């Protein structure tokens, strides 16, 4: 191991935690992936041990990997169907609740993860942790509220928007959505148009909920291109991006 590896965060993490963490460093950002079962012990160590001292949890958010890398606009082969291929598809904003995409069973990778951004004020370093949830139908991650109390609302938000359950959270209520909201709106299979709309009904003289009246519509199809210019940019990035 060279000197820089020893002093780098990735090197220190590998030395301390071994196989518990899968550490990668991209563009000077260190990312560690770990199992939900190890999260609590690792988080406590990261906060307390002098080599790490991640005194602040900056952010925690949920993410749903359903449909990662899927496109609606094929650019490799020329299609004879014209633009109609761009207005069909399953991506966000194209479906209502009845037509929502459903997972295809066993061979699908795990969907939900919680992503945590840590900051060490003492060492002026950042670290990102990613914890995948084992079960897609009941995603569970241990709560970190006893390690960093400030994570409380971030966990509530991830629960609200993604339905990730934080085991041990003292007060896991919805936070951003409406009182009495049903569903987890940031999941990739939740329609962008939503399910209900709300209005004041002058006849009943109260606010009522109704099924949405708007139609799903997307103006720009989702596409993935491997542009030559961007590959050039990536090659340059490998050389001298962010030297300071």
């Amino acid at each position, binding site marked *: 191991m060279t000197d820089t590896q020893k002093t780098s965060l990735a090197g220190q993490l590998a030395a301390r935690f071994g196989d518990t963490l899968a550490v990668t460093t991209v563009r000077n950002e260190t990312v560690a992936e770990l199992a939900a079962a190890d999260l609590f012990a690792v988080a406590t160590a990261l906060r307390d041990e002098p080599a790490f001292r991640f005194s602040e949890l900056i952010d925690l958010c949920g993410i749903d990997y359903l449909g990662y890398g899927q496109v609606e606009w094929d650019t490799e082969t020329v299609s004879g169907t014209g633009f109609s291929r761009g207005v069909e598809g399953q991506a966000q904003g194209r479906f209502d609740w009845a037509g929502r995409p459903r997972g295809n069973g066993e061979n699908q990778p795990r969907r939900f993860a919680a992503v945590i951004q840590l900051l060490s004020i003492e060492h002026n370093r950042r670290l990102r942790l990613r914890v995948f949830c084992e079960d897609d139908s009941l995603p569970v991650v241990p709560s970190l509220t006893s390690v960093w109390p400030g994570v409380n609302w971030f966990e509530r938000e991830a629960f609200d928007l993604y339905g990730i359950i934080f085991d041990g959270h003292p007060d896991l209520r919805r*936070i951003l959505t409406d009182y009495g909201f049903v569903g987890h709106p940031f999941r990739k299979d939740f329609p962008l148009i939503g399910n209900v709309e709300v209005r004041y009904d002058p006849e009943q003289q109260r606010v009522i909920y109704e099924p949405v009246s708007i139609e799903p519509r997307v103006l720009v199809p989702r596409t993935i291109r491997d*542009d030559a210019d961007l590959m050039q940019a990536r090659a340059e990035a490998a050389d001298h991006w962010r030297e300071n």
Partner: protein
Amino acid sequence: MQEIRNYTMNFGPQHPAAHGVLRLIMEMDGETIVRTDPHVGLLHRGTEKLAESKPFNQSIGYMDRLDYVSMMCNEHAYVRAIETLLGIEAPERAQYIRTMFDEITRILNHLMWIGSNALDLGAMAVILYAFREREELMDVYEAVSGARMHATYYRPGGVYRDLPEQMSKYRESPWHKGADLKRINSWREGSMLDFLDAFTADFPSKVDEYEELLTTNRIWKQRTVGIGVVSPELAQQWGMTGAMLRGSGVEWDLRKKQPYAKYAEMDFDIPVGVNGDCYDRYLVRVEEMRQSNRIIRQCVEWLRANPGPVMVKNFKVAPPSRVEMKQDMEALIHHFKLFTEGYCVPAGETYCAVEAPKGEFGCYLVSDGANKPFRVHLRAPGFAHLSSMDTIVRGHMLADVVAMIGTYDLVFGEVDR
């Protein structure tokens, strides 16, 4: 002895001191807070989900609407995240412009904060003075982007256009005429940089005016000294950043510690507090206005001396000029593709943060290689700060909750997203 039970009180969501749509459910023992439960989300618009359904550039305007009193700082975080994944860097002049506008935004934000916070705590005059200077800086926003608030000025690869050569002038009207009109137009004879030069030369004396009204004001000190004390340990546990953390004596500022844009080249100081109470945070923010003023002056000086491009010459991410489009087929195609499809960002993820006026505003961006982001998460400082409300106000009086809401510098556009 008569038994007195605690009672529950509702505060907001429509309340002038709630800074928007905050609803607090408070359990009170007489006038003392026993427990408080902030309800947020009344302004939730699903910005992050909306961003997933459109090309990258179309979401820049949404960023302005998050923290709608520090617009360009929000754009900066989002644009930096895209640039990091694309592997492009804005030209030097664009980076100076961004630095300058980040600081103009900081002054705009702190003026709003000082005015509304003083108003909440019973000092009517400050907001009137603060809005006088805010108006001038709003005009700068308008001159550079065409919009007074929601600018959409920062773009991946630079800024939308170079600084204007002319400042707009007031026309004669029933409200502005004669000597008054001449006075307000006297700064506006030259370019925008001339205007900023005049503004920044004058601004420290305006900050003195606000301080005159508040710093040694007995009522102001009674309402803020020793109220809402946050220890450095508590601040870190609750993920506080910005003035909330610096007010407690922790010298932490991303502009110094993890510099972005051109902050490494700037000469400025980081004010820190001692006691971590509302008064110290007030002093920190006032001093930040003076330091921002210094940074703007340095940027103005550099920008005067160094003309140059403000956008990368890469037609995959930045549109070609209108003139080029009229003559060059390639340019026309690039323009069409950019505005109908956008650009594809290489697969990867990044977290980019800026020192927004309220604290660390971060953007966690995940791309799967498509022309739309796969996941955008916006880390809003106000959200983390407000979550500590219950811990901090326990044992305080009801009126101190208002002081605390003010000192958090809350804006619900970013808390609820």
